[in-house]
């Protein structure tokens, strides 16, 4: 008798699972229409762009993200298709193959893409950060040489600042660049580089002068330059759809014309790149959290316990309410920081830091809450929640830990 009961229960469970899953898969973007602030303050054109990004994310990213994560696939075909549509150089001057969007519009795009696959979108934002750096600080020759290929994702780009012994204390980096004739010789090691090993160009911050930030310069290093090698692909909790590896420079020869900006500009260039990067990473957390929220919202209406759908219980309702507030406030602070960047406000760095810290912290919580609302099913890899949770966890750490964000914010707050 028990054995029969058990097998019926298992059959019912997998039927329920399949039912829930197929219903959930269908609800990708429909509930985002109901989000209170999703379209607030956006122009007709921005709404059109948002819809297009949502469409691409729903059709070309969401259905495949699980497979990419499971098999550690870097989805180059999808990335190139995305680049064809203008996602490869979102902030870059259209004369060099970019799309020329402002920060607000670009981040609206990233938010939608992150709802599909957070890990790959995070890579796209890093690639875009590098493209922006070349566009903003490069000379004509450098832009002619690299920008169009980067915008098309014919060349993938990586940002190399962190070293094994220089993380939050980035300005203490040790990688050296010595000028010898018409070349710089680079020696050192960069750690945790997104795209490391696969990327075609690496923006490497190296020391050309005195200790501290003023002695650092920025170089565009191609994969095939002599003296550059890569460590193994790191085995990570999440972000499995992009390789992460050490970049090792052993008497790496970089032509003088590949220095971005002047000697000593490197740290400033790196930090300005990160302002935008932080905003984008925060936006990725928002996208992931929104997707998790949508899934949870739909799940609790279907799942019945004690004779009622979970959505009838006040505990569930209040949890969803708090999650919704987290999402909308994250959205508002991120978009305000984006506007501050577009207006070149003097406090934009502080705003970006605030937005990054807030959105990444809240984003993780919302993903976690969504997992809890799914009960046991949330823990299964058949449901996408755990993947979004794993992917967003690192957003609280990279591009400046949230503790470094507190440093920046307190400095801004305490300044005279």
């Amino acid at each position, binding site marked *: 008798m028990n054995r029969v009961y058990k097998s019926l229960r298992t059959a019912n469970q997998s039927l329920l699972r399949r039912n829930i899953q197929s219903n959930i898969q269908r609800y990708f973007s429909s509930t985002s229409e109901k989000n209170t602030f999703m379209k607030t303050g956006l122009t007709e054109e921005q709404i*059109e762009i948002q819809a297009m990004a949502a*469409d691409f994310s729903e059709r070309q990213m969401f259905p495949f993200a699980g497979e990419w994560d499971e098999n550690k696939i870097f989805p180059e075909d999808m990335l190139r298709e995305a680049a064809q549509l203008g996602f490869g150089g*979102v902030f870059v001057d259209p004369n060099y193959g970019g*799309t020329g969007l402002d920060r607000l519009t670009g981040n609206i795009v990233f938010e939608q893409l992150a709802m599909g696959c957070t890990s790959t979108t995070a890579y796209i934002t890093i690639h875009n950060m590098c493209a922006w750096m070349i566009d903003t600080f490069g000379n004509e020759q450098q832009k002619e040489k690299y920008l169009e290929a980067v915008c098309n994702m014919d060349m993938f780009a990586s940002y190399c600042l962190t070293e094994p012994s220089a993380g939050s204390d980035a300005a203490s980096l040790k990688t050296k660049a010595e000028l010898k004739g018409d070349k710089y010789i680079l020696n050192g090691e960069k750690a945790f580089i997104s795209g490391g090993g696969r990327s075609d160009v690496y923006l490497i911050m190296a020391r050309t002068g005195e200790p501290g930030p003023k002695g650092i310069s920025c170089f565009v290093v191609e994969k095939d330059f002599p003296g550059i090698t890569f460590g193994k692909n790191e085995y990570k909790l999440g972000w499995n759809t992009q390789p992460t590896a050490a970049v090792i420079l052993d008497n790496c020869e970089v032509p003088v014309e590949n220095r971005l900006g002047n000697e000593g500009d490197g740290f400033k260039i790196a930090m300005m790149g990160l302002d935008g990067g932080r905003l984008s990473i925060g936006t990725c957390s928002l996208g992931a959290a929104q997707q998790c929220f949508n899934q949870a919202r739909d799940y609790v209406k279907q799942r019945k316990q004690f004779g009622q759908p979970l959505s009838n219980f006040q505990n569930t309702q209040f949890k969803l309410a708090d999650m919704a507030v987290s999402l909308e406030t994250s959205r508002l602070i991120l978009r305000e920081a984006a506007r501050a960047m577009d207006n070149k406000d003097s406090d934009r760095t502080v705003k970006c830091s605030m937005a990054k810290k807030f959105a990444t912290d809240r984003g993780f919580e919302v993903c976690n809450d969504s997992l809890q609302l799914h009960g046991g099913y949330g823990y299964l890899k058949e449901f996408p929640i755990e993947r979004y949770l794993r992917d967003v966890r690192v957003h609280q750490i990279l591009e400046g830990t949230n503790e470094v964000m507190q440093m920046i914010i307190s400095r801004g707050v305490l300044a005279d």
Partner: protein
Amino acid sequence: QKAVDEVVAFSVGPQKAVDELRRALAKGVDRAIHIKDAKADYLQPLQIAKISQKLVEREEPEIIFFGKQSIDGDQSQTPQLLSAMTGYPVASFASEVVVEDENVEVTREIDGGLETIALGKPAIISADLRLNEPRFTNLRNIMQAKKKPIETIAIGDLLSEEDAKPHVNVKEYKLPAKRSGGIKVESTEELFDKLRNEAK
């Protein structure tokens, strides 16, 4: 793909039609023509065909694309009417289109399967569901869409008052009668009688 030099979209309707035209421009259409008419719901395929004919005379396109049938009237008449008026060949329910120098080869979905025919240009084609998967709009195109021209023509300029009068008067719309249960018959004669006289 450079099969054609220019793509023009046109739409007849109130101001709302402009949104759709902008969307078409964002997808890569070069310019758009809006035939403005505040009400538009009285328009029937014959009028649309007549307006189309005027446009065709003005623009001299090589190929004219329509959807196979509208979502409101569901009639699938406009392309065929235009063909009769202009004398151009028409291929409806196209699921594949290949543009060549002299001809356009169209594969049509018909009741029996697929039919492939070649049409001389200018040609009229109506698109079926399986013609293609709508492409993703390029971000750059969305932004350029607002710079592309939309020409507005008042409907009176293309359609005389006489022509604008509806030819078909819709008397009633109703749902089909609900399917009633079957009946049991007593004899073969009764069955035969019912088959012959009732079950038409």
